[in-house]
């Protein structure tokens, strides 16, 4: 009953949307109101103002820098919210430990009170819920990980000339961390990219962004007006804007990468950070 009422309401709503679609400009109309008012200025002035051929990057980090700064702050806040919602610091030991003998693949089940082979090279601890072990997946992921990291850095640094930028590169870096955590296990991932590291970087990215803006104020410009940094970099004003965009994109990438890893750690282990997907 409720279902049909909802479908009826949605039909009316969709009908209204279709009705007002009559007033929208046609598909791909060059004279559409969205395309004639503000964006011609951005397209024509991007190279004289900022020296950046990719107009999306120049609008993202320069013309609309405030917008992107607070979006980064939103992402940072979401990471904090995930951490506060899920993270639990209880030190309760699990009842059963599972250890795999690496040479033979025999799995030992050690009850509470048994001797745990800590630090032994022959045994490795495995999760209680995720037992399968695949050498091919592990080795392949280890081989592709450096290339994924390099590609992510390329995406961040080359966002001026091609599609890409801080958000995409940061997400690829976070995805590389997630690949590492899935192909090995969560404990190995949190040993290498620790929770403390993720928390520090997520705050440091936003701080780098905001402090670049404040630095512009010290050089006599407005907040986030990178052109004022020209004496510092020793370039023209447009070149200084380009370099300022690069710094800001690096800050965004750091923040996004750390937040993605942190959210994945917390969701996959339910906030315990001991055993994950």
């Amino acid at each position, binding site marked *: 009953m409720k279902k049909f009422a909802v479908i009826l309401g949605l039909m009316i709503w969709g009908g209204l949307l279709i009705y007002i679609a009559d007033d929208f400009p046609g598909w791909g109309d060059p004279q559409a109101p969205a395309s004639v008012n503000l964006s011609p200025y951005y397209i024509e002035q991007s190279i004289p103002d900022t020296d950046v051929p990719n107009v999306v990057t120049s609008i993202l980090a320069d013309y609309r820098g405030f917008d992107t700064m607070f979006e980064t702050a939103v992402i940072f806040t979401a990471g904090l919210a995930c951490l506060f919602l899920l993270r639990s610091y209880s030190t309760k030991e699990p009842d059963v430990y599972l250890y795999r003998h690496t040479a033979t693949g025999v799995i030992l089940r050690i009850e509470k009170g048994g001797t745990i082979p800590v630090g032994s090279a022959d045994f490795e601890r495995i999760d209680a819920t995720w037992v399968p072990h695949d050498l091919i997946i592990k080795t392949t992921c280890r081989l592709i990980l450096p290339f994924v990291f390099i590609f992510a850095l390329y995406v961040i640094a080359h966002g001026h000339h091609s599609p890409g930028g801080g958000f*995409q590169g940061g997400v690829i870096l976070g995805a590389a961390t997630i690949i590492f955590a899935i192909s090995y296990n969560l404990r190995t991932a949190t040993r290498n990219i620790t929770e403390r590291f993720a928390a520090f970087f997520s705050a440091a990215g936003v701080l780098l962004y905001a402090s670049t803006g404040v630095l512009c104020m010290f050089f006599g410009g407005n907040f986030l007006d990178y052109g004022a940094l020209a004496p510092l970099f020793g370039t023209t004003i447009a070149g200084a804007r380009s370099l300022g965009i690069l710094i800001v994109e690096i800050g965004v990438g750091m923040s996004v990468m750390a937040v*993605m890893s942190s959210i994945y750690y917390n969701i996959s282990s339910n906030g315990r950070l001991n055993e994950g997907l």
Partner: protein
Amino acid sequence: MIWPIDIIIISFVVICGIAAISVKDLLSSAILFGAYSFMMCLLWAVMGAVDVAFTEATVGAGVSTVFFVAAIFRTSRRTRD
């Protein structure tokens, strides 16, 4: 901006979206959502919004799907609707 390709991709997007919300297995639903995101990414790439398509490919199809799978791994996989 070739309209037959656009219409084919849009119909794929709608089919993937409807399938994602109507499947009873939540893990399949998450994977179908990944397929939906990839189709959407293709649609935006055809429209010329390459940056948006890149972001959707990394964020929507990559990380969102992983988050869904991780959350389903920690909760229940079956559902009634």
